[in-house]
């Protein structure tokens, strides 16, 4: 941000170099009022639903349904949280979700890196076919062929097991193409030099290329972890025993009932988000400042 401000003030100096410094400075401030206001109006709009939801979770069951509503809780209480913790076996569901999200993410990063490298650095007709097949996965998402995917998982013997949730979601076209785009930018000379030195193809990949791709690995890991943490449809069809539920499916049981207990639902939803928010705050620069231009969607 500092560099941005600097370059804009430099531009201003070139344009109005004859004006006194003070006027230039006040002009800068005046001209930044409109964009800054726009930015923060949008920020408030985006943040408000979250904030309202978060603050409501600290209101007592009675206050949630008493007019007039107030923005801040009149009486802060964690009663909803205590009841949510009692009602939902969070330890178990956090455990299941963490297992699914971590294992899937590790496998996703590994397989996408190897395949992305193969697609970027080798030429063969079958590789182009493979690339097209993977690309078509973005257009023909797995969510749409629910029954057959369910049959495949069942026939493999993974019905109602976490493995059944993990396996179908490892391969993401986004991940493969993120790595492919990255490895294309790595100069072929590096590869040739390593070959001249007699390095084996696989060790070139693991020793030289993979370490270079560390930023991509991190970005994909965070994105993939978020996807898998929030996944809904595959766990829903594959897991039947409440013992194996992931968080999202457990939350769903709170919404499914006729009379929603909002105090519990709000608190449980907040709790379910805590790990991701912490992860995001630590690693946010890897997502928000990455120049992502491949089809990032799952």
């Amino acid at each position, binding site marked *: 941000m500092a560099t941005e401000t600097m370059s804009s003030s430099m531009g201003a100096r070139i344009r109005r170099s004859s004006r006194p410094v003070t006027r230039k400075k006040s002009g800068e401030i005046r001209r930044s009022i409109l964009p800054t206001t*726009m930015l923060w109006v949008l920020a408030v709009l985006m943040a408000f639903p979250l904030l309202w939801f978060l603050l409501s979770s600290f209101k007592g069951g009675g206050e949630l349904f008493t007019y007039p509503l107030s923005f801040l809780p009149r009486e802060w209480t964690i009663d909803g949280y205590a009841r949510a913790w009692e009602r939902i076996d969070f330890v178990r569901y956090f455990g299941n979700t963490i297992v699914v999200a971590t294992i899937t993410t590790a496998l996703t990063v590994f397989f996408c890196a190897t395949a992305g490298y193969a*697609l970027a*650095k080798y030429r063969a007709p079958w590789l182009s076919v493979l690339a097209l097949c993977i*690309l078509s996965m973005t257009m023909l998402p797995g969510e749409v*062929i629910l029954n057959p995917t369910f049959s495949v998982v069942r026939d493999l013997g993974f019905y109602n097991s976490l493995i059944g949730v993990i396996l179908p979601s490892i391969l993401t076209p986004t991940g493969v193409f993120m790595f492919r785009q990255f490895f294309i930018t790595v100069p072929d000379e590096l590869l040739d030099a390593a*070959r001249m030195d007699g390095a084996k193809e696989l060790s070139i990949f693991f020793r030289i290329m993979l370490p270079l791709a560390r930023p991509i690995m991190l970005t994909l890991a965070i994105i993939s972890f978020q996807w898998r943490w929030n996944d809904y449809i595959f766990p829903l069809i594959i897991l039947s025993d409440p013992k194996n539920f992931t968080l999202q499916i457990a939350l769903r049981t709170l919404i499914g009932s006729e009379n929603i207990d909002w105090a519990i639902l709000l608190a449980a939803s907040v709790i379910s*988000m805590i790990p991701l928010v912490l992860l995001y705050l630590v690693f946010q620069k890897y997502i928000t400042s990455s120049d*992502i231009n491949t089809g990032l969607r799952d």
Partner: protein
Amino acid sequence: MTSTMRSVVGAKAKDAPVDAGVGTSPSRRRRVKRRYRLTPLLLSAGVIVLLGLFFLWPGVLGLTYSFTSYRGFGPMNFVGLDNYAKLASDPTFYAALGRTLIYTAFSVPLGYALSLSLAVALTNLRARGKTAARIIFFLPWLVSPIVTGVIWRWMFGENFGFVNYVITSLGGGAVPWSSDPNLSLMVVIVASAWAGAAFNMLLFIAALNNVPKSYYEAAELDGANGWQRFVSITLPGIAPTSVLVILLSTLGQMKEFAMIQALNNGGPGTSNQLIVQYIYQTGFAQSNVGYASAASMVLLVILMVIALIQLAINRKANQ
């Protein structure tokens, strides 16, 4: 992704590493060649297996199911095109498909406008507090579809929701956000724009930063105002990204399921049942696997047509 596609198709042995062993004996060269053929296969073996197991096999299986009266167990009876014929005259299917198209037609433009506004606001050189705003803009991305549904259901509650509270405080009547089908769909549309904005914003930020600054300076010297600069420099400059964002969000919205389940469960009644929920209901709740697979195949064809149309538009625009 569109550029990816072009390069995938276009890149033919441009810099094939196969010739690395020039000048060595023929046998050595052949060995090198074979090694290079084996390595990519080894590297992509995992992906090939996964692709086969969880994409190609289900695809073929789904197509097969769609010609049978399979119910999830027992024998598969071949019924020819019966499922498709039945589908063609099924009002519930048409209702779900129509509702999905309406939902997509509104949520994609709204999401596009919102994410582009966020990106423009964030890339403005004069705006202050961009680092904080960027973190805030990105928060909704962390929220799962289920929780997104909960958040917006809570905001737009008919009796004690925030929005209706504000409306009644200002003297209006309570708006039936959840008992009126169209209003209920509107809430879903707003929620989807909110939830999807962050990611598309990232794509737009990258694109906006690539528009040459000199164009803006030239336009400013010529006296173009902010809006004119936006329309005649920014929008054309980010056109490929716009196509990408519209394509991805169209495909994403067509398969909306989790968020709407939490928000209104396709209600009131079944008035907002979207197509994936229809497939889920038919295929799992009613166990009509053959029939649901036929509906899946129709949806796949629609998605493919949408994707091909947008890729064609993009190719034309690039020429």
